[in-house]
């Protein structure tokens, strides 16, 4: 298992795994790394290098999840990162997949009401996911920020959000979407569009899986811990 460190060159991360580029961008870091190390680039963009590496390594390795290390970071850092991934999903991943599904269905001469259901299924999925994201942004994250910054202003210290069920559901339907296309798509379609769509779905699936894991295994336990300590 490859684990990146502060002394690695930043450019080496992207060369080793191009899927890391969106994650790096999410931290506000821009290209033009030259030969600078991770530590140097992080310093230049005012990013916490330990946190950056924990996230990047989690993303890079399926079996890497430094739970203790992540739990030690401020919940504010976690929330900030989660917000940025939300923005990426809403601003890029979800519309991108939508457009590709639309183009895929347009590319088949057998386009009919039945195949059209794939698009309707996706739109329903997107709507549910967006609602879930909005709920986190409007209720959960502000609660966490208040709890850390100004706990005395919190009138209600009850936190009963549990998103594991929602997350499971999101995973399930994305998996169904993949299977429906892979197993039951009619044979006439534009293969380039299809390749791109599947690539994008797989990438998104991995991204959102990591994202949910950080919420369920890091953020929620952190909040519970703070609430318990404050009693």
């Amino acid at each position, binding site marked *: 298992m490859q684990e990146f460190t502060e002394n690695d060159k930043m450019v080496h991360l992207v060369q080793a795994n191009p899927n890391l580029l969106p994650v790096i961008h999410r931290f506000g870091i821009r290209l033009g790394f030259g030969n600078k190390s991770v530590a140097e680039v992080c310093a230049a963009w005012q990013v916490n290098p330990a946190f950056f590496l924990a996230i990047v390594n989690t993303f890079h390795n399926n079996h890497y999840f430094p739970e203790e290390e992540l739990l030690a970071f401020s919940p504010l850092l976690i929330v900030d990162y989660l917000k940025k991934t939300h923005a990426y999903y809403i601003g890029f991943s979800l519309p991108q997949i939508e457009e590709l599904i639309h183009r895929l269905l347009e590319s088949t001469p057998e386009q009919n009401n039945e*195949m059209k259901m*794939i698009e309707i*299924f996706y739109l*329903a999925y997107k709507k549910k996911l967006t609602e879930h994201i909005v709920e986190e942004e409007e209720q959960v994250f502000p609660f966490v920020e208040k709890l850390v910054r100004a706990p005395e202003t919190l009138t209600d210290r009850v936190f009963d959000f549990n998103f594991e069920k929602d997350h499971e559901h999101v995973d399930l*339907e994305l998996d*169904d979407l993949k*299977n429906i296309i892979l197993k*039951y798509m009619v044979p006439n379609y534009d293969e380039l569009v299809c390749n791109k769509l599947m690539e994008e779905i797989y990438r998104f699936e991995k991204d959102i899986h990591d994202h949910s894991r950080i919420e369920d295994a890091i953020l929620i336990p952190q909040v519970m811990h703070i609430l318990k300590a404050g009693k």
Partner: protein
Amino acid sequence: MIGRTVIIVHPSELVCRGLASVLDGLKAVRILCFSSFSEIRISEHAAAHKLLLFVPASCRYADDLLELRSRIGEHRLIGLFNDEQEIIRNEVFDELLSINTSGNDFLKLAEDFFEEGYTDQNDELTNREREVLRLVALGHSNKSIAENLFISTHTVISHRKNITEKLGIKSVPGLTVYAIIQKLVDTSDISGDQLL
């Protein structure tokens, strides 16, 4: 492994033969008839892959049956009764049926039992599974599907498990899309929010 077996125990030869001929349509199932419980050498059948037993529901056998159940593998025990007045120990049986039940219902019950957990090589859905899937797509609950098809909710759940395994589709919206693509239901039967 001995395959799928039906054992019918009944003192009336007519009942035995009648039920056996009704169930004759089952594929790859062995049917055995006995006039009394004592004739069965259960050790010979304990290893059967799936065992469906029809026995008289009268109390006389209850303790023997309970003991028997602990010794055999996957099975279903159906008690046959003559009239409602009979004294029957409910807890012994999976299901109680009057001997006046229609042949079709007997057959359906047996089909469901043997279809449960039975996966075809080619992963094609069985007719019964397609029917369950159609109702799922139309938005029915397990309970309502059970009522529609005259089967237990337990059987519905087991069908749904098999459907999901065969198709690789787990969510209700996903199954609905599959049902439409396969033309099991028409798009006009589905309202948009059924996918939500």
